[in-house]
Structures are given as C-alpha cells and as structure tokens.
C-alpha cells in the first residue's frame, strides 16, 4: 500500500437518489494529497466540490471507491473511530461558519477539545491560545450573534485549529467575507501551511486559489486539471 500519502481517494463516486432522478455528484475521482500540501479546489457551482470535501472530512461516505486517510481505510473504521478522526486529524471550516448558537466563542472553540477528552484547565488554555492566534482574545465571551461574519469565521478557524489537526479542510471559507476579512483568513491559512499542516480549500475566487501551491479543477463530478502552481 502506498501509505505515504496523507489523503488517498481511489475512483470515488457519489450518487444521490436512484433511478431516473439519480444525481451523479462525483463520477470517479482519484486524488492523492501528501502531508504539508496546500491545495485549492475550483469548479463551477454544482460540480461536486462540496461533495468531495465532505467525503474527505469523513462527514459523508462515497457510493463507491475507497478513501485511505493516513494509511487507514476509512470505510473500515467504526463509527466511533470516524468520530475520533473528525475530532483529532481534521479541522473543518464551513462557508456558513457553523458556530453553535447561544454559546460563547471560547466554549465553541473548547468543544472539539472536550470531545477529545482533554481536562478542563487544559481545554481552557488551548482554546484561549487558539483564539489569540486568530486575534480574538478580547471576544472570547461573546456569542456568535454578537460577532461580525469575519470574526465568526475566525472563531471557526480557531475551533478547527484547537486540537492541532494535521489536515485543514475549508469549504468556501471566505465566501461570506469582505476583502479585508478574506485577507486575514488567507494569511492565517498561509501560516498554518507553513507550520506543516495540510490545507485543502474550496473556492470560487482566483485570489484565494493563487495562495495555494496546487490547483485542482472539478467539472461535472470529475477532476479535469490538477497542476502545481507555486
């Protein structure tokens, strides 16, 4: 087995529904991403980018094909083991932030640490440091509805970083942000990648894609180009 790639998907398809109304979101995608890469995924709307990203994040399962993550066949992992992978190896950043409402920024960032069974004091310390990294120490006690979109996304990034995951998956992280916030978020991704973390970003913006060192273009459920850019 070629266990050297961190992410290794082989001929993955994803079909929603069945028969006449079946939607083929992925029609056979194979992709390898090594540790430390910075990959951008682009493609028109409905081309299957989010579907691919959800499979990479163990949030969804492929209809056919294999997914090897860090040398393990994800399909063979138990439900609890998959939860563990989501919690420790992967940090997921969504376009719509997905913070838990009525819960402070700090508590949101603490959440994955709680699920990883860290002690209370340890959780607090790490969550505060993650918030510090995204420059939101002074907003720790604010709830999501008391934060701007850019701040919410930074909290979401802090939350994704808190457990120190090797992989950062971001589905249009700057889709709801203005130019200034976008710059801040991208600067953070650059830093994280330079620390050695693997970053995969879905985007519609060429400006975002330019930061990555590898660009994958998806169209109609297939990878059409895959090139090293920087």
């Amino acid at each position, binding site marked *: 087995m070629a266990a050297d790639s961190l992410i290794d998907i082989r001929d993955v398809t994803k079909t929603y529904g069945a028969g006449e109304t079946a939607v083929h979101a992925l029609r056979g995608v194979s992709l390898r991403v090594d540790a430390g890469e910075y990959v951008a995924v682009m493609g028109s709307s409905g081309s299957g980018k989010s579907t691919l990203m*959800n499979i990479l*994040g*163990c*949030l969804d399962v492929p209809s056919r094909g294999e997914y090897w993550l860090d040398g393990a066949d994800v399909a063979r992992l138990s439900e609890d083991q998959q939860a*563990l992978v989501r919690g420790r190896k992967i940090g997921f950043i969504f376009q719509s932030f*997905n913070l838990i*409402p009525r819960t402070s920024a700090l508590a949101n960032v603490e*959440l994955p640490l709680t*699920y990883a*069974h860290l002690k209370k004091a340890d959780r607090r310390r790490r969550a505060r440091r993650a918030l510090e990294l995204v420059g939101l120490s002074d907003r720790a006690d604010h709830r999501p509805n008391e934060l701007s979109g850019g701040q919410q996304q930074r909290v979401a990034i802090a939350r994704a970083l808190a457990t120190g995951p090797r992989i950062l998956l971001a589905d249009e992280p700057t889709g709801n942000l203005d130019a200034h916030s976008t710059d801040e978020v991208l600067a953070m991704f650059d830093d994280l990648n330079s620390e050695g973390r693997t970053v995969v970003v879905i985007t519609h913006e060429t400006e975002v894609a330019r930061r990555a060192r590898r660009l994958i273009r998806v169209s109609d459920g297939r990878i059409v180009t895959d090139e090293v850019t920087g």
Partner: protein
Amino acid sequence: MSPRDLFGAALRGLGANKLRSLLTVLGVAIGVGAVIVLVAVGNGSGKAVQDRLEAMGTNLLTVSTTGGGGGFVRGQAGPSAQQYSLTMADAEALSDHRLAPDVAAVAPVMTSSGTATNGDTSYTVNQVIGTTPEYLPATNTPVANGRAFTKQDVDSTQRVVLLGQTAATELFGRPASAVGQTIKLGAVDFAVLGVLASKDTSGFSDPNATVIVPISTLRATQAGYGALSQIVVQAAGKDKVDTAQAEVTQLLTARHQVPATQSSPFRITNSAQILQTSQDTAATFTALLATVAAISLIVGGIGVTNIMLVTVTERTREIGIRKALGARRRTILGQFLIEATLLSLIGGAVGIIVALVVSRFQLAGVQPVLVPSSILLAFGVSAAVGLFFGSMPAHRAAGLRPIDALRHE
C-alpha cells in the same frame, strides 16, 4: 466528555428555552405530585376508617336477633318471635367458660330512649343503655370522670348513671362537675357516678349523647322485663374472634332449639370482619386513585418525549456540528438523555415538594397519610420516565449522519 461536561451541556440546553422546559417540568411535577397525594389520601381514608372501628372495640361480637328468624319452612307454622328473643339467661350461658371458652366477656344490653333533666335543664338522650360493667371495656368506652358502676350496683338495682360527654355538657355545663349530682330519667332520680370519655363522633349516632345505667335498674324503672336488644360479646383475643363467633352461634342455636333446616335467626356482627372489609375497600380505593395518578404521570412523560422531539429537530444542525467536531454517538445520546432525565427529575422533585406541602392539609375530609414508598416510587418513576420517554428522541439525534444533520434547515 466527562459526566460534568455532559451535565453542563444538558443544563445549557434546557436553559435555552426556559418556558418550554418549565412547562414540561410542570407536567411531570403534576404527575408525580398526584401519585403521592392521591396515594396518601387513599391511605389516610383507610387509616381513618380503621381508627374509627378500633375505637368501637376490636374482638367485639354484637349478637342480636332478627325476630321471626328465617320465616316459614314448608308450610310449618312459624315459631313465635319470642322463641328467639335474647334473654338474660342467654347472656349468662355465653359467659360460662366451659360452654364458650373463647369468650372473654359478655354484656347484655337493653336500650330505651328518654329525657334526662337536671332541675330546669332537660336533654333528650340519644339512647339509654342498660347493661353490666363488662360493657365498658368490651366496647372500648373508658370513664373520664368519676367511676363506673359495679356488679353490686347491678345486683342491687342501684339508681346510678354514667353520662356521655355531650349529655354531661348539656346538663351540667362542665362534664367534671356532673359527678355526684343527681338527674332525673323520666320520673326517676339517678345519681351521676361518672362521665364517659369523648368518642369519635363520625359514626351513625353520636356515642357521646348516650347515658348508661345498670340493666337491672333500666328494666325496673323504664324498659320492663322484655327481650334484650343485644348481647355484646368480647372474644378472648384477636385470633379467637372466629371461634368465639362459632361458639356463640352454636350455643344460641341449641338453647333456642332452632331447627337445622332454618337459617339462623341470630345476627352476629364481627368488628374484625367489618374492619377487614373496610380495609379491603380502602385498598381498592387507594389502587384506583393510584391508577388515575399513574395515568397523569404517563401524560407528563409523553410531554417529555414531545419536547425532546422538538428539541432534537430544532437542534439537528447543532448535532451535525458537534459530530463534525468529533462528538461520538454516545456523547450525543448522553446529552439528550440527560436533558430528558433532568427535566423529569426536576419535575419529580417539584412534585414531591408540592405533595409534601399539600398532604399536610385535609383533602375532601380526609387527612392524607404519606406512604414513604410512594415518594421513592414516584421519584424513581420520574427518572425512568425521563430515560424511557427521552430515549427515542435521543437515539434519533445520535443516529443522524453528520452530513444529513449539517444540511438540515
């Protein structure tokens, strides 16, 4: 996730919708409170009946005659009513230990009515009871002031009287001041020997409105020498009541030569039987109340399910986020189960407190008597209700695929 974190998350979840949580808690509280209070009411009414009957005297058999007996049998001429009348001789025979070994005491009873007067004050007594000294201990009627009359008083036809509390109060103002005074019963003077202790008045006739005189005196002055009204028989012990009753029946049947073909002309009421019957009735009553209460507890439980289903639906997206962040199935399950259990436990605690307060007051004329096991049961059931009724929504939440939960609108 540690139990403490789970607990905290559950509390936050409940706090997010306070009014809704409060109403659900109320539903459970009503159910639990109803179980405790209604069981206490049933228990209390059973106790009240028991106390009343015990005040009448246990081990007590009351023998009376039904007059003409079982009527005419196959065209034979009916025996005269007098053949079955109870007599003083019957009472003497019953007190013979060789004939009726399980009988401890026998008191013949004659009754009449009349008016008692003290100077200008007159009082219509409920009953003038003529009997022997054995009557007082057998019927659990102690003398509060003064003394009871003796066998010598009966033998020498003394004109002495014991007054019931109400009779004494009506005639003399204060019961204690009656002792040593003289009253008239009809036209005859009687010396007041003593005043009877007050009795529970919730029977058919007020036992405090009676006066008691020696039976010989009553026959000589008022009632004549006819049949006895009753014979009161005290069995030798609680477990001897049935054998004593058999002995009495056998002896009277033999003495009055009742034909074997005829049903017994003697009616014997047995206080233990009455007690048993009324205890059975009280138990049925309690069970009925408990059933009604249990139904309201189930309704409260359904309220918990309902609210948890709404909560799970509302928070599906949150569940998806938690799963994406590494929450395991059992963490989600635990969070919602704890929420449901907390709801019903808080409800249970509130219900118990309310029930404890409510059952200090009389309800529908009954003083509730708490049954400790019903409190434990109600609390246990409310916890179980939370687990049981919460588990369906909690399992639904925990079983969601992360992506399905995240896509939920």
